[in-house]
């Protein structure tokens, strides 16, 4: 079957659209997270998602509603990371580590209690974008609009806090409110990114496009736009490549992001060499 025919199928269209929306939302948030050295929050939240999926499956909630059901648990965990990060004696990476370990440990214990459900859990570990439901597509669209609107609305505050949180406070910025919004949106994006790339690769969706964009950037706004562009490009090309070569979609999208980063780093090196 020609590759273009695949896109006539409704589930493929849904997957492509959801993939683009989720990747775009994650890449917008990722710029702020990477620059604040919170890159690994995606990993931490993915591990919490793992534990939360185990809880939801153990409770016997239908697989169709798992994404929705894990959201509250992951949002709470994200806020806990934020609170721990601001505790005087805990650094951001350690705070992520605490919540991440808790998520994994809870997941492992719950898996052992729910014998027979391990297969379901494994599907979340590796993700499958082709199983995106209509409800999840709607949720992805809503989250993208929410993320984009928040970034536009709070842009001056987000920029100031990303540059220096203490300095932002002396400018009268409500840093706690902005941080809470950022961490909650990240939690929602992480849960949805699980659907594309799986729990194992959630942080890649948050980190790789911003990182590639930062190498080329000429300004902060251009970095955000480039990050958005890279994420969308990697989902579209990644899906085409995965279908063409019969590879797993999530892994191929992430691998393409890494290739993009390497290309951009190569261009930078070349530029520095020829200067």
């Amino acid at each position: 079957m020609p590759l273009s025919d695949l896109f006539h199928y409704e589930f493929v269209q849904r997957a492509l659209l959801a993939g683009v929306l989720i990747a775009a939302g994650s890449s917008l948030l990722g710029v702020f997270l990477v620059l604040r050295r919170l890159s690994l929050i995606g990993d931490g939240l993915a591990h919490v998602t793992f534990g939360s999926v185990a809880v939801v499956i153990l409770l016997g909630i239908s697989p169709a509603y798992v994404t929705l059901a894990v959201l509250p648990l992951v949002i709470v965990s994200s806020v806990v990371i934020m609170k721990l990060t601001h505790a005087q004696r805990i650094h951001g990476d350690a705070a992520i580590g605490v919540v991440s370990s808790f998520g994994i440990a809870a997941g492992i214990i719950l898996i052992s209690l729910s014998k027979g459900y391990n297969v379901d859990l494994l599907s979340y570990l590796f993700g499958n974008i082709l199983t995106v439901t209509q409800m999840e597509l709607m949720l992805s669209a809503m989250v993208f609009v929410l993320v984009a609107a928040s970034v536009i609305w709070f842009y001056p505050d987000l920029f100031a806090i990303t540059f220096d949180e203490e300095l932002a406070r002396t400018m009268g910025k409500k840093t706690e409110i902005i941080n809470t919004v950022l961490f909650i949106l990240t939690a929602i994006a992480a849960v949805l990114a699980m659907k594309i790339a799986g729990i194992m690769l959630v942080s890649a969706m948050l980190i790789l496009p911003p990182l590639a964009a930062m190498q080329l950037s000429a300004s902060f706004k251009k970095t955000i736009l480039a990050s958005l562009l890279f994420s969308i490009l990697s989902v579209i090309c990644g899906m085409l490549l995965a279908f063409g070569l019969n590879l797993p979609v999530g892994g191929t999208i992430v691998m393409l992001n890494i290739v993009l980063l390497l290309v951009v780093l190569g261009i930078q090196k070349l530029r520095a060499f020829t200067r």
Partner: protein
Amino acid sequence: MNAVDVNHLTFSYNGLEAISDISFSVRQGTYLGIAGPNGSGKSTLIKNILGILRPQRGTVSLFGRRLDWFHQWDRVGYLPQRIAALDHHFPATVEEIVLMGGVNPGRAGLAHVLESLKIAHLSRRLIGELSYGQQQRTMLARALINRPELLIFDEPTTALDPETRDIFYSLTRKINQENNTTVILVTHDTGIIGQYAQQLLYLDKRVIFFGTFEEFCRSQEMTGFFGMGSQHLICHQHDEKKEKPL
């Protein structure tokens, strides 16, 4: 009217008192130098004045309003000791940083500040590509962009060479004298304060001295505290400054 009022301020980190029972007021238009040895609580005091830390005991007021009720932060400019983001990777231009936080001084206002600090030609450059001195001028431009009535500098010249440092301090004096801007300068270098400030607050977890340089130089108590040699050196630098033109 006072720009800053600090009353019986106490702050501790994990039970250890960093500053204790600090009280002083700064009249509008004054240039106040805050000095003290390392760990004397200078930065803690500044962070309490700016609302970065919340006073555990006592109160801070800016322009007559208690910090809890103070919202006119565009009247205050702050230049911190260190900026976490000032590394090679932060992808923001000088212009983006000066206009940080949604400030809108207009093209003319921006151009005026950048030109006065001689960084107009750098406006499109990334902050990480600049020298430390240029970064510091960018941060000063950010602090000045709103034409604040109160400017607070927390050891702003730690990594600057002596020549750039003198230019920087002369500029703070010029801003203070020409615009009647209140300046609070924190440094561990009492010699610098002697050259530029009108008033001195010497801190060592508590207030050791607060007053004018004339009072400081006459104080027998300070002769006992600093020793005659050190006190004379500070006072000599202050006297020299008075004869120096801007």
